[in-house]
Structure formats: C-alpha cells, structure tokens
C-alpha cells in the first residue's frame, strides 16, 4: 500500500512534442505529490508538486494532472526540449505536520529522451 507505480520506464519524444508520465498510488493518506527531475550525476531537484485538493497545477511548460478518485497523477511536459532529457521521479508522502515527517515514497523513475 506504500508503493507508487510509475510508467513508462523510458520515453522518447521529439522536440516540441508532449511528454506524459503517469503514476498511481494506493494509500489514500498521501497528501503531497511532488515530481523530481534528475540529471546524470546530480541530485534530484523538485520540479512541481500538488496536493489532492486541486485537480491540476501548471508551472510554465510543466503541468500535474491529479485524479483523486482514480488515485492517479501525471506529469505533462509541453513543447519538450532536448534540455528536458533527464530522469523524472514521481513521489508521494504524508505531509501533514507530524505525519511521518514527510518521508517520500518514490516511483521507479522514467528516463526521458527528447530528440532534436
């Protein structure tokens, strides 16, 4: 019940296209859903995050769509660029104060390659 399932494992997109990565969870106590971007040899960096009280959050070219009833959330990268080529991790945690101190449950990651 603590798992977060992420798909696809790898994704190849043409420059200018839309990249879509999906995640699903079981634990309805999760209340914070971040996406991390990681370049080779670097630590993960927070890209965008959402709470279950909204269905969508957009920051620039990056959008999270959240479906509470289906227990699914997805990352959409519009106008994908070669510089977006990285590994993307979805995660979930119980973020309320005192709730397991924000321990992140990560998906297995998606390696995105954007071809010029």
């Amino acid at each position, binding site marked *: 019940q603590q798992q977060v399932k992420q798909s696809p494992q790898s994704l190849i997109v043409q420059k200018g296209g839309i990249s879509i990565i999906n995640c699903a969870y079981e634990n309805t106590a999760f209340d914070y859903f971040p996406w991390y971007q990681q370049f080779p040899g*670097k630590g993960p960096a927070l890209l965008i995050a959402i709470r279950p009280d909204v269905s969508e959050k957009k920051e620039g070219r990056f959008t999270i769509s959240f479906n509470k009833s289906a227990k699914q959330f997805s990352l959409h990268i519009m106008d994908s660029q070669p510089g977006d080529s990285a590994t993307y991790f979805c995660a979930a945690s119980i973020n309320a104060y005192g709730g397991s101190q924000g321990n992140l449950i990560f998906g297995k990651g998606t390696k995105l390659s954007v071809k010029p």
Partner: protein
Amino acid sequence: DAMVIQNPRYQVTQFGKPVTLSCSQTLNHNVMYWYQQKSSQAPKLLFHYYDKDFNNEADTPDNFQSRRPNTSFCFLDIRSPGLGDAAMYLCATASPFANSYEQYFGPGTRLTVT
C-alpha cells in the same frame, strides 16, 4: 545562496575500510535525510533526523550509521563497506514549518568500493 552541500563529491574506499560522508546545510531545516541511490533506481531512504531524533528505516543495514552533531551537519558512516554499497548517497533537508515538507537534495556523493 542557501543550499545543501555534500563532501566529497566522489569517494573511493577499499572493501571493509570505514568511510564517512558529510552533508551540511544553510537552510536551517529541522529534518535531514540520507538516501542511497543505485544506478537506474529510485532513491532509497536510509534514515532521517528530526532535530536530534534519529529515525532508522527498518531495512537499513546495521553497517550504516549516522551522526548529527548540530542543525547544520549530518554524517553518514559506513562501517565496513561491501561491493554492494557502491552507490550515490544523497542528503536532503526539509522543514515542517514551511508550507510543506518539500525536500531539498544535495548533489550527492558517488561512492566506489574497490
């Protein structure tokens, strides 16, 4: 700039020879985490500190220990590294008094065991 710093960035140690990795932060965050990340895998939480309170994950081997002498610094000690401990070790921080437990990761230390 406020940040999470890890030293060294690359560490080579011999099989069985103790090694210490260090993490420092200028964010003044209460919570510090240590993760292990192997190639093409997600980060795996080893343990975390909430202030001085230590929280060990159930499946973290006894070979891994940690110290947090003050708010700014946290150390990961590997008492007898095995070949299977070769990985990237990531430190992260968070503050429960912010709007969320957003975790800020350091650049990592790449550990090689020979």
